Every structure is written in C-alpha cells, then in structure tokens.
C-alpha cells in the first residue's frame, strides 16, 4: 500500500486481505459479530461540543500541584482535548484527540519526554478504552496516528512513549518525514484529506512560525487547529512572508468552509489581554483556547498593516514579528529614575 492509498482508503478495508487467508473463520466471524454500526460523522454538522469554562492552569507552588499531568476534556463524545499540566511544563500545550470509526488521531503532546515523568501514553490509551467502551468497540481494532502540528519539542517530546504500542504510527522528526506522513508532494499549498473512518481531517501546510507546520481542519466538529502559527498568546513569527501567506491560506479556507472554532496550541494571555510571560507556570485568569473566525480575520487585517519587525497586539493575539531572538513584552517593574 503506498502513501496515497494509506491516506484515502479505509483502514478496515485494508485489513481484510491481511486477516483473510491465514486466520480462519473464527476471528473473522468474531469481528463480524461485534462489528458495531459505524458512527455517522457526516450528518448533523457541526457536532455540538463545548470547551471547559476554565482549564486547569498551574498553581502558585509547582511542587504542591495535585492536578493530573494531563487534563482530559471531552469536547463531544468523539473528540477529546488534552492539555498538559503547567506544573509539568510551562509550555502546557493543548492536544486534540479525534476519533473515527477506524482510526484515532492525536495531534501534539507536551514538553516532557519520559513515561515515568508523565504517562501521556497511558492517558491516551485510557481515552481510547473509554471511547471504545461507550461505543462497543475493541480498542485493538483502532489504528492510532500520532502526529503533531509542527516540529518543536513541546509538541513531540513524548512521541517515543508510543514506540511499543500496537497498531500505531507516528510522525518522524524531520520535515521530510512530516510532509511524507501526510503524503504531500506540494507543501504547503496542497490540501490532503485524512480519513479516520467516516471522519475527514483536512490538512495543509502552514509555515511561518517554523517551516514544518500544518493546519488541521476536522470536518466533524469544524475545529480549525492552527498550531503555533496562530494561538491565544505570543505568535512567534520566524518568517514573515511564509507566515502571512499561511494566514491568507487560513482566511481563504474560512471563506469556503464552515469553521466553528479556531484553536491554537497554547494560551499565554489573560482574559483581559495581559501577557503571561514566557515560562510562567501559573495562569490563574487565562483566556480561552478557542477563538472565532472573526478574531482570525481581524488578526489578518492587522497583519496587513505590519511592515516592520516588532510586537503587535491584534486584540486577540500578540504577533511577534521576527523578534524571537531579541526582545519580549515584559518590563522590569523595579525601574526608577
């Protein structure tokens, strides 16, 4: 099976030739017997779901934090959103987990490597078990795809926790392997469709924060996941023109597709627009992770006026245009004259 087939063909259909000959009727009959009715991911769209009123967001003293390493929030019965605990890493990225009839897609992880430090793998397995129990499935029948929005360690650090997990594929840590994982030959313009089994995820390139970044659109919840190139905080723009072009691509997509929420990987800003400085481990009044298409459009409109490197506030996000190696927003509070 080549890459294109992998992307477009239903994983269960592909599995039949493998089990058909060697395994006798027993296994086939068993799987046929328990094979539940497929979930319909194409009607009554968008699926209604909700974000938490407030995410777990760290604590005054890190070592006294008793929250779980990963907060699991079920946006709807077929979509979980994971978030790393701020006391486990200040990066505390968000990580959607999309369920289809045949595949599960995990996007992003968190900024801790080892399973003994935080058991992301165990949390994902538990989510899959829970979903399967609710929907009468066998967890072993689902393929897990572990992918990430872009090539930064806070999004892939835990990837090797999945090395010994059966029926699992994960992205490599080079641009080539990432683009190849989605079968793209014309990054970033090419838009591919990943079939999770009745649930389509649209994926295209979104460089600018880094070269190797994707945008992910879930056709079921209509969440547009914009990674680190656009999120509720400091959008570190390493390459202006590619970022601007990627923003244009997002806007064009919103012009032609219904989008319920725009969602980034982090939150680094309070509800009233205060910056939570880089590295903070406690964000008691943080803004929601989800944004509206209107906020994306406003940011793009603002970006059209930017001609110089610098830090700009669009009302929703900070656009840190090529400032990463030099300066930040925060000031020394003890200055006096």
């Amino acid at each position, binding site marked *: 099976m080549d890459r294109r087939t992998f992307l477009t063909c239903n994983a269960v259909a592909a599995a039949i030739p493998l089990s058909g000959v060697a395994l006798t009727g027993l296994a086939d009959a068993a799987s046929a017997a328990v094979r539940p009715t497929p979930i319909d991911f194409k009607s009554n769209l968008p699926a209604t779901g909700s974000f938490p009123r407030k995410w777990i967001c760290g604590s*005054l*003293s*890190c*070592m*006294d*934090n008793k*929250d779980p*390493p990963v907060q699991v929030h079920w946006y709807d019965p077929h979509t979980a959103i994971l978030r790393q*605990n701020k*006391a*486990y*890493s*200040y990066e505390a990225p968000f990580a959607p987990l999309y369920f289809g009839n045949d595949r599960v897609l995990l996007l992003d992880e968190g900024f*801790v*490597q*080892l399973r003994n*430090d*935080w058991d992301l793998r165990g949390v994902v397995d538990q989510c899959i078990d829970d979903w399967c129990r609710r929907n009468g499935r066998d967890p072993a029948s689902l393929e897990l795809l572990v992918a990430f929005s872009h090539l930064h360690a806070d999004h892939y*650090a835990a990837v090797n926790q999945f090395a010994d997990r059966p029926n699992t594929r994960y992205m490599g840590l080079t641009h080539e392997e990432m683009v190849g994982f989605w079968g793209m030959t014309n990054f970033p313009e090419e838009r591919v469709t990943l079939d999770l089994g009745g649930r389509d995820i649209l994926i295209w390139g979104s460089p600018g924060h880094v070269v190797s970044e994707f945008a992910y659109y879930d056709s079921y919840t209509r969440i547009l996941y914009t990674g680190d190139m656009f999120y509720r905080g400091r959008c570190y723009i390493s390459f202006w023109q590619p970022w601007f072009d990627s923003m244009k691509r997002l806007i064009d997509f919103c012009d032609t597709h219904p989008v319920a929420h725009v969602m980034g990987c982090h939150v680094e800003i309070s509800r009233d627009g205060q910056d939570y*400085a*880089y*590295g*903070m*481990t406690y964000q008691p009044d943080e803004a929601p992770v989800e944004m509206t298409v209107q906020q994306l459009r406003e940011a793009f409109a603002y970006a059209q006026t930017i001609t110089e490197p610098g830090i700009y506030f669009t009302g929703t996000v900070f656009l840190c245009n090529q400032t990463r*190696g*030099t*300066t*930040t*927003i*925060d*000031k*020394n509070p*003890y*200055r*006096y*004259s």
Partner: protein
Amino acid sequence: MAQSSTYDRTLSGNPQSATGRAYPNGNPDLGYNPPGVRNTDSAVPLHRNKPVIHDYACDGPAPGNLAFRWTYGSNVAARNRDPRVQVVQYNEDSFVLRQNVCVHWEAPFTYLLFGNEGALLIDSGATAQPHHYPLRETVDAIIARWGKARGRSRVSLTIALTSGEDAAQNQGLVQFVGRPDTTIVPKPLDVMKRFYGLGSSWPSGTGRIDLGDRVIAVIPTPGTHKDGVSFYDPYCDVLFTGDLLFPGKINIGNDRDFIASLERLKAFAVSWPVKWILGGHIEMMFVPGKYYPRFATYKPYERVLEMVPALIDEAIQYAREVKGKDMMLIRPDFVLFNGVSPDQRTQVWPADVPNINPPRPF
C-alpha cells in the same frame, strides 16, 4: 624515597578529584591547629548553667564553607520532593537557607546569622504561604537548636531585607508577624532609613545591626531596587548583596545608583576584608555567560553561589559600559540588563568569553 608530610598532589590526593577541592585530603603545610579553631563551641559542657559566650573575634574569616550542592529542582516540578527549604550550615553561627525552585522559580537565598545577643535573618523568600514554604518553622527550629546548644532560652530575632520592595525576598515576612522577641526592619524606604540611622546620610552612611560581639554593617546600595541595602558580616567576612550583585541576570533599576553603589561596595571592601560575596539568587550556569531563563524550575547546571570580591571591579567596569543605554551585556559570572525587558536576548557574545553550550536537560 624520602618521607615527607609536605603536600604532594601525586601522592596525597589529586585536585582533579570528584570533590574538586584543592586539597582533597587536607594540606598538612597549614598545621594542625589554625587559629580559627577557637571560633567554635562544639565542645560545650554537658551541664550548663549560663549561656555560652562565643568568641566572634577572629583573624581573617571565621572557618566555614558551603560544602553541599544546592537543590536544583526537577524536570517535572510537580513531582519534586526535595525539601521546601534547604538548610546549609556555613558554620555554627551562620546558616544559608534556600527556597526550593519548584515552590518558586526565584529560589532565593535567605541568611541566618547569630551573635551573642540575637540573630539576624537577611531576606525572607518569595512565598508567603507557610504550607508551601515553611520559612518561619525552619528558622524557629534552627534558633531553638542553636539556643539549646548555647544555653539561651531567649534569642531575639531581627529580620532585615536587602530590598523591601523585592517580591522575591519580602514575601515570607508575613510569617513572622506577631513572633515574640522579633524586630522586623520596616519596609517603607523612609522608615527603613531612620531605623538604620541613615535618615540624613543615605546613601553614603553606614548603619549597623549589633548581634552581640558580631556587628553587621548595613551599606545602602540602591541601583537594582531604590531601597536596596547590602550587609557585611565581619565574622565570616561575607558581603550579602541581594539583587545588586549575584550570579545571574542583574536587572538594573537605575544605572547611576547602580554604579555608585558598586563603588561604595568597592570602597568598603578596601577597608574591610571580603572573602565572598553572597547574593540573593543564582541564575547563571556553570559554563561562562550562560544563564537560565526566568521561571525555570529545573537548573541542573547551576553556577555556585559564592562570588569573589574582584567581581565588584568587573561589575563596575561593565556597568559603565551599559550606563545610559538600553541594552544587555553578558559577562561570565553575571549579565547586566539596563532599561530592557528581563527576558531580553542578544545576538552579541563577548569576544573574551568562551562560548560553551551546556547539554539540554532532555
């Protein structure tokens, strides 16, 4: 082969050994009975009916050292199980306390000094909540143990801050409110000046805190904070400089004051011997010029705390370079930030400092 008691590194211990000490097995050339022996009271009698009067007079610095590595947090701060307050006895009458970096990223140092008539706590940590940071409880326990050993049932305590406004050093103060036999140096600048008797001579004068045969000098050192002071202990010959001079990112509040205060320290160090400068934090790594970012809770490659007095000269030299300019400047043992964000970065690497990248923590 001739037998000799003179130190020979090939025969008596390699200074490249794991401890890193110059004389890992001692140096017989220094003699077995140096004068500092008399500055210890470990052999107090079993039954004491009156307090031990300690001899705080000494030739050169009183014996003592920082013999242990500081705790340095953990990769996952929530799973850290190190003590919330790390206590290191410098000598019988001097203690260094450090806040766990996984309780607060500033991980400030707090110093507890004893004299024949009382104790002095310099700074109070970055966290007010005693269940997160039991500074009061720890200090009380050290004072109780010290008092028992010295035959004193009451030990008065003075608490002074290197800066009243510094939220990384004044938060623990509330734990001591209402403590008996305790004097807290007032935080407001004017009241603090009067407390030290510096009402009319700030910042050129020098105040004093008499602990009983151990008189701590109070040197006004505004510059990183407008109410900054440094303390000098003539017993251990140590300068406690708080945020003014420490191995880390020094955020200058006012560059004229900063240079003037460093010059004041330099003049002070001419007339008084200084063995070490101990600041309020560590942010530098053990490779020159590299430092941890703000909010880091895992600092496995931290530099040692102690600074040599020659660093005052270096700080003055480079403070003059940044004076009047909004810039940061990297030196091997500290980084100066003047008029810029505490997270400012620079592409400029000093030509005379080797550029070594420490390994990533994971």
